[in-house]
């Protein structure tokens, strides 16, 4: 316990170094901005800005991106409330009561409740993170390739069981990402694989960032252009200190729901397929169920704004937990962060705690600081961010396209990858319109090489005996993960069956 306190103190000190503090500020600002823009969320921001972070050392880079992740969760509420369209999918639930509040002229209160609830969610989850991460990493240190592989199976199973998307299309998306990860030289035999049309460029493989920027930069903007037609309408908001003071008295109204939502959000956030969006929806449902006045939800209940906002912030921190301790990202955004860590030359997973304590604890420390910075920035700059929303898509779109192009080129130095990004972006957009989820593919391309290596190592070790993954005497943890994974994969079948039975009895 004291050891953790020591390390945390060192991490906090580190986050106060001028460069890191500047990164926190820049990250929070960028996150608030990106989160507030309709259609853009943390995952888009992290994908598009990752190439720029090569400017600074890895610790400063991850601090910047984590702060951005965090800020985007706050920012999402801004457009949910003032525009009535979620600034990011993670802020969908905030619209339900945020928009009615704004229509009743209570936009200011909704914004403040969102900011303060986000702060509470962030604080509770970072404390949980600090308590859970070191012991979890300790356990994970004993993992062999069997356990690693089983964990990845579990991560993908969560998409099938909990993702809520069409199941065959989800499986297709996962497999596509895993196969794309195999393009290029084989890590074990050194043979070139899947060199399409004998183009030598494919020998270097398909970078995860090319796919991520293609999908979350190009594809997302095409999607947003189509959804909005390039136009948005919004309500004016102005927050003053006097109003804020008055609002502070109201906090106790939503404090219990907020705390509960934060804990819920944290744990839902750790699941790869779940993350901030379902966490905030679940928190909203929970707040409504336990409310004394459930009928007021959807008509402008302040708890209906606070609960999802607390949960989405908590979930963003929660999704960092498996990324840092197990090397399995808890969300698409952390999948990109994980890919970034590999580019920076770090090996994600439990060894990080032993080998790169500065990196891990610097990040954790910065999350405490970022929480304070974001709530302060958010409350102080609400009017500014609302004005940002008036920025037309016809300026934002070309700038994002340019950043995507320059970002991909700067990372890989090849025009080939820029063309590939364009093709993948268009493909992702067209498939997304047919309800193919894209997040599993991004997660899969990041985890693909690790998953393949751990599978082959396990099988080489066991002389080709596939039961090594489910051997209770040798690999009980692996067995446990596989059992849960199978249960998750069967869950939709079971719930479908139950629905059919229920339908039959109804008629």
């Amino acid at each position, binding site marked *: 316990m004291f050891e953790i306190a020591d390390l945390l103190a060192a991490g906090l000190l580190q986050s106060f170094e001028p460069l890191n503090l500047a990164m926190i500020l820049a990250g929070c600002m960028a996150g608030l901005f990106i989160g507030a823009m309709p259609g853009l969320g943390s995952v888009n921001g992290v994908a598009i800005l990752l190439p720029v972070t090569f400017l600074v050392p890895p610790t400063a880079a991850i601090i910047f991106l984590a702060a951005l992740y965090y800020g985007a969760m706050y920012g999402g509420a801004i457009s949910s409330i003032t525009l009535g369209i979620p600034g990011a999918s993670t802020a969908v639930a905030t619209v339900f009561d945020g928009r009615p509040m704004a229509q009743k002229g209570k936009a200011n209160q909704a914004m403040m409740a969102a900011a303060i609830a986000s702060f509470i969610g962030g604080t509770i989850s970072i404390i949980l993170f600090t308590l859970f991460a070191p012991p979890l990493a300790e356990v994970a240190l004993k993992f062999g390739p069997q356990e690693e592989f089983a964990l990845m199976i579990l991560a993908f199973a969560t998409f099938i069981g909990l993702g809520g998307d069409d199941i*065959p*299309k989800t499986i297709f998306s996962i497999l596509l990402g895993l*196969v794309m990860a195999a393009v290029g030289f084989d890590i074990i035999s050194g043979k070139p694989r899947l060199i399409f049309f004998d183009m030598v460029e494919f020998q270097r493989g398909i970078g995860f960032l090319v796919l991520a920027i293609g999908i979350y930069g190009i594809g997302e903007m095409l999607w947003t252009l*189509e959804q909005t037609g390039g136009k948005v309408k919004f309500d004016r908001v102005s927050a003053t200190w006097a109003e804020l003071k008055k609002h502070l008295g109201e906090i106790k109204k939503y404090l219990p729901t907020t705390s509960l939502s934060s804990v819920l959000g944290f744990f839902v956030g750790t699941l790869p397929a779940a993350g901030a969006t379902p966490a905030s929806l679940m928190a909203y449902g929970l707040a409504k169920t336990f409310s004394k006045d459930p009928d007021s939800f959807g008509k402008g209940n302040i708890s209906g704004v606070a609960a999802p906002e607390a949960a989405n912030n908590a979930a963003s921190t929660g999704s960092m937990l498996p990324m840092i301790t197990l090397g399995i990202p808890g969300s698409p955004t952390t999948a990109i962060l994980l890919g970034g860590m590999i580019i920076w030359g770090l090996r994600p997973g439990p060894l990080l705690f032993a080998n790169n304590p500065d990196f891990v604890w610097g990040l954790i420390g910065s999350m405490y600081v970022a929480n304070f910075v974001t709530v302060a920035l958010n409350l102080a700059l609400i009017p500014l961010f609302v004005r940002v929303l008036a920025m037309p898509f016809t300026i934002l779109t070309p700038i994002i396209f*340019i950043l995507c192009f*320059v970002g991909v080129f*700067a990372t890989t130095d090849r025009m080939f990858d820029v063309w590939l990004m364009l093709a993948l972006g268009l493909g992702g957009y067209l498939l997304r319109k047919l309800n193919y989820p894209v997040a599993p593919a991004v997660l899969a391309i990041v985890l693909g090489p690790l998953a393949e290596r751990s599978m082959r190592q396990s099988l080489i070790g066991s002389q080709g005996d596939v039961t090594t993954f489910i051997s209770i005497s040798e690999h009980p943890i692996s067995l446990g993960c596989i059992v849960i994974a199978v249960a998750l994969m069967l869950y939709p079948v079971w719930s479908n069956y139950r629905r059919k039975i229920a339908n039959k009895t109804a008629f």
Partner: protein
Amino acid sequence: MSTRTAELLASIALIVFSLGLMWTVHTDGLKIGWVPERGPGSGVWPFWLSLGMALTSLWTLVRWFRRTTPESRNEAPYIESDRFGLVAISFIALTAMIFLVAIVGTYISIALFLGFYMRFVGKHSWPMTSATVFGAVIFIYFLFEWQLSKYLPKGLPMFEDGFLWLDNFRWEYFM
């Protein structure tokens, strides 16, 4: 094209694509089974997972025939006609920009793209457009060439020369 037709075409295309992947693994001569003394062959992963892709797409195709997916019952246009123009012009302009990079270089290309998009798609005023174009070009030059020391493509030699002069100037006086 209706969403229903789009799903049919997509699932057929994805089946063909998956089979193509499996074929590529085969023609590359990669082993898709156990190699004695060596472990799983290097084709195991891509081959069997591509087979899975083919099967899941086939599954979608079957459901399309049985009309069980929401998309297979959706006769609405795949892309709404009043939005199609905006999406198409954005994508074509972006493609043209990337194509032009090889000829006129990054900076002229992004300036043309941004200028075109803002002035003719967004109908912004000339002063607004030119200010954003200059700001963006200078920002990208400063961030990538200067701070990240990345040499972004400069196009054909006649365009590259101008930037060489700028680079010399920068090295001479600012480094």
